[in-house]
């Protein structure tokens, strides 16, 4: 699993690449732990490079969502393929997370 991080306006955009399963999720959890320590309040996670996500990957994103919520931050997701979107729907997480089609729409949503 690979991670790219950039800043657009005052939003941290994280691009994930690879499968998010029980093998790769510990690495993702460590990566996000580092970002959350900085107290970032606006984060977009772009899942465009994620072909597959399991419950371990979902758990990682739920943890980030909950931790950010506790300190007043906000997490938005974007770039899901049909497979990933379907898994969010089965878990009924599509109504919990703020999900956008594209990264630009997710970033713009912080300004609206």
């Amino acid at each position, binding site marked *: 699993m690979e991670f790219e991080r950039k800043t657009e306006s005052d939003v941290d955009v994280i691009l994930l690449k690879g499968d998010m399963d*029980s*093998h790769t999720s510990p690495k993702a959890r460590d990566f996000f732990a580092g970002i959350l320590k900085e107290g970032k309040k606006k984060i977009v996670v772009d899942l465009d490079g994620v072909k597959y996500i*399991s419950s371990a990957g979902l758990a990682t994103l739920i943890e980030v969502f*909950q931790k950010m919520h506790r300190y007043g931050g906000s997490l938005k997701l974007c770039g899901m393929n049909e497979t990933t979107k*379907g*898994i969010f729907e*089965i878990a009924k*997480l599509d109504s919990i997370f703020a999900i956008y089609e594209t990264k630009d729409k997710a970033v713009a949503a912080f300004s609206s």
Partner: protein
Amino acid sequence: MEVNIGQNQVLLQIKSDDRYLRLVRTMVEEISLLAGFAPHDISDIVLAVDEACANIIKHAYGGDKSKDIFIKLSLLSSGIEVILKDYGRKVSPEKMKGRELDEIRPGGLGIYFMKKIMDSVQYITRDSVEGTELIMVKYVKKCG
């Protein structure tokens, strides 16, 4: 596990190391395609088997990467049967009910996915036999 396989079966043996889960997913995807499932169902079956393997690694073997997992896939006349055999800590079927989704928290979604996706999920343990056998079946939905 019986190592003989029939004409419509595939058997994969892996160590209980989650770096092999991608290999399992690829195999399940290909067999599900052969079984005639639609792309959406194939993704779901892949998820269910992946979650079952991850549960074995975490719960039955406690994260020990050196143990054995057997995955036998059988093409049925209108579906697929997946049998997963481990030799770890026995699973208590009543503890494998899965959680409800009303509470948003990480973890515990694996069993929920398996039961939601597959038409049948059955844990079999016997006092005289080591480990657990998990049998999951999914049928091809006929259109029209």
